[in-house]
């Protein structure tokens, strides 16, 4: 493998590495036919970044594939280097910009070193011989094309927006509807939401180069990672494209310079406990994990409601979830995370009353129509946004079922509700989330849980972590995961219940007194379906749509 970067592109390359270094600890390098791929993933597998530098980016590019002398094992170099090592090469970008004329990267197989040679002014040559580790390809599975929501903005717009948030702000929520786009800080479960500063920023769709909102939604993700992305975008002055779907599903940030290079950043989003987004949700295992503070925490009043709804009602969430579920189907993993989150969320004290009320509301994630206003939070509306997360988180669970679950953990299947129980979620989450903040956890939880059914979760970790490499721990716990996994959205999905039950066991206590979980669930289910049908935009939400056959062992 050998490639030479011209002096003019070194800044971009170096900046790319700097932004990757803010996300992960190791840099995965792989020379492909269509370019050099630099990838990283964070420790909790909740953020993945990939830069692909096409051959046109280099003066000379040779991926080594045609190297006759290398044996099979060396045919393609797939290695990873510690970020610290590569940062020593690209430490001072401003100096490099001025002095380096070109940079040669080649592989020294004899000494097992990756060699970076910087040819600087005045004939000075700096050589860095870095030790690497051979590894498998780091891949993430995500889809940009199919995402209903897409925003394209100049990096300046986003930088200015992000500047309004405190430096220690962990997660932010992006709320979209065709009329406006709102960014607000995500408030976790704070002891007193009123004591926390809430920042809310609204943008008009026409401030964006392209604004396409297919599904009104609220997604919560990690701000720190977004700042890393914007750090790179600033240098390139290229627009940034954001593709996302609903809470719990990954959000993808792309910077594309025609055919020279492309950067993709995939972040997990907090699964909506309400399940709205989670539709697929996976029962958020979140409950357990809840580390992500995100979703669950928002204690805001609204959230409470939401939460409760979610937790308790599951149904309400479920409603949402379901809806989302149908949408999301895909993410079982997500749901798992969501579920997890939800579960976590659920663990919080909830107002059963509210939950019960919320139960009937079928909240469509995007629709505000959610019956219960409160519950609705799942939808973007959710109040504090945090709430939103709740829903996601907690339950991401089973979109449909989850709702029900939430509340009481009801419905066994609702397990998603597990969120409270967190049990399920937790498990899922644990895998991933551990690290991540809310989002991660949420996602994780969600995702994993989803699995409950299987290892759906494992795959992506919370938010469907597209990252294949992830060794997602299959949910050991039933992921409350919503039907996504294939469990089908149907609310009454027993399978789901099963999963949920497991986790929710502990949480059943939370169930609103007087309403047996099963009943709740059912009512939620049916009620919601009816409700949802009326309100759901997606008629199919109501229908249990089996997204994927449940592969869960539990089932």
């Amino acid at each position, binding site marked *: 493998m050998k490639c030479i970067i011209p002096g003019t592109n070194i800044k971009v390359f170096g900046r790319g590495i700097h932004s990757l270094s803010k996300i992960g600890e190791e840099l995965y390098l792989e020379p492909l036919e269509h370019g050099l791929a630099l990838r990283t993933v964070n420790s909790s597998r909740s953020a993945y970044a990939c830069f692909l530098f096409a051959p046109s980016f280099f003066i000379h590019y040779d991926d080594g594939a045609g190297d006759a002398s290398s044996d099979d094992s060396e045919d393609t170099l797939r290695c990873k280097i510690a970020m*610290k090592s590569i940062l*020593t090469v690209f430490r001072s970008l401003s*100096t490099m910009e001025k*002095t380096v004329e070109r940079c040669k990267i080649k592989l020294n197989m004899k000494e097992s*070193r990756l060699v970076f040679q910087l040819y600087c002014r*005045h*004939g000075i040559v700096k050589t860095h011989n*870095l030790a690497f580790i051979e590894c498998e390809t780091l891949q993430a599975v995500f889809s940009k094309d199919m995402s209903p929501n897409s925003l394209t903005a100049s990096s300046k717009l986003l930088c200015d927006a992000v500047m309004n948030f405190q430096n220690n702000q962990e997660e932010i929520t992006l709320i979209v509807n065709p009329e406006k786009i709102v960014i607000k800080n995500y408030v976790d479960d704070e002891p007193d939401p009123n004591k926390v500063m809430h920042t809310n920023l609204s943008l008009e769709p026409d401030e964006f180069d392209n604004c396409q909102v297919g599904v009104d939604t609220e997604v919560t993700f990690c701000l720190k990672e977004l700042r890393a992305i914007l750090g790179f975008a600033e240098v390139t002055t290229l627009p940034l494209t954001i593709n996302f779907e609903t809470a719990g599903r990954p959000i993808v940030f792309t910077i594309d310079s025609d055919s020279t290079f492309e950067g993709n950043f995939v972040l997990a989003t907090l699964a909506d406990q309400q399940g709205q987004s989670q539709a697929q949700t996976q029962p958020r295992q979140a409950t357990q994990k809840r580390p992500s503070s995100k979703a669950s925490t928002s204690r805001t009043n609204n959230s409470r409601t939401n939460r409760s709804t979610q937790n308790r009602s599951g149904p309400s969430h479920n409603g949402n979830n379901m809806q989302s579920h149908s949408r999301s189907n895909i993410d079982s993993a997500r749901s798992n995370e969501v579920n997890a989150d939800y579960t976590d969320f659920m663990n919080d004290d909830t107002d059963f009353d509210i939950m019960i009320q919320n139960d009937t509301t079928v909240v469509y994630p995007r629709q505000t129509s959610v019956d219960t206003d409160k519950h609705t939070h799942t939808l973007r509306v959710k109040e504090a946004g945090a709430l939103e997360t709740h829903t996601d988180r907690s339950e991401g669970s089973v979109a449909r079922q989850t709702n029900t679950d939430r509340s009481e953990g009801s419905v066994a299947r609702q397990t998603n509700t597990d969120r409270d129980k967190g049990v399920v979620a937790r498990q899922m989450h644990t895998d991933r989330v551990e690290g991540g903040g809310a989002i991660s956890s949420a996602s994780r939880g969600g995702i994993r849980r989803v699995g409950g059914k299987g290892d759906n979760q494992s795959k992506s970790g919370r938010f469907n972590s597209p990252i294949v490499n992830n060794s997602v721990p299959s949910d050991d716990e039933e992921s409350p995961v919503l039907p996504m996994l294939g469990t089908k959205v149907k609310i009454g999905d027993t399978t789901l219940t099963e999963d949920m039950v497991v986790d929710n066991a502990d949480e059943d206590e939370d169930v609103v007194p007087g309403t047996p979980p099963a009943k709740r669930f059912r009512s939620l289910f049916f009620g919601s379906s009816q409700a949802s049908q009326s309100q759901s935009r997606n008629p199919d939400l109501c229908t249990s749509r089996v997204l994927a056959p449940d592969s869960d062992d539990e089932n």
Partner: protein
Amino acid sequence: MPMSLSTQEPADDDQFLMIAKIDNARSVSNILKAIHFKETATVFASSMGLKVTVEDAKCIQANAFIQEGIFQEYAIKEDQLTFKINLTVLLECLTIFGSGPVGGACTSLKMCYQGYGCPLILILEEDGVLTDCSIKTLEPDEVLDFNFCSTNVVNKIIMKSECLKEAFNELDMTSDVLEFLMSPDAPHLRLSTFGNAGSTTSDFPKDSDMVESFQCSQTQTNRYKVSLLKPSVKALALSSRVSIRTDNRGFLSLQYMIKNEDGQVCFVEYYCAPDEDLDDPDH
């Protein structure tokens, strides 16, 4: 004995064995900062000027030369006066009015020394404000004589400081040693470090426009402890040119030419003993 410069009687100066006056105290303080990596320094005053020496670990020695031509007034009654002094305190006094170049205002300095056992007197004035300092002097210890004479110099390179500054600023601190390879053949000058991330080398060809003079007779590779050389970066940062010399024993001499604010030239040099392999048969 505090006394203002303006009121000081010329006759009072008779008691001092050494008096030095300079209009801009920064000419002295900046140079001393370049060698300030230890608390104490030994001052040698002679008719040629002042030499301040700082040592560490018996392996590294830094010398700052402030020639008598730099001073507006310089008088010494003995051949050589030697005393040890706390360099940190001395620098704090010299920069008592602030260390940055203040537009317009200039701190003038008068240094007086009465003899063995007496304190070093500093009188600083800026804009009519006077500061008197009296710093106790200490018994001077023997300083190392690296015995580095020009006749033993094997390789000598004089280059512009600019490019070395980057190399030294980015020195891999996880490496124990900094290796100097000097050779008449390519690579002519190579600095290498071996750290946790891997090895890093910087090559400077002799025909580079950064290199002003290149006289290498044999290929030499010597290693020096990074921790010992790191302080020299301060001197390198202030300098415009640097001369790198190694002798037959592998000792390194780095000489920095520093231009002060008034355009006058001062020198700072660093001597460093090589890192020897214990099992090296030659040593």
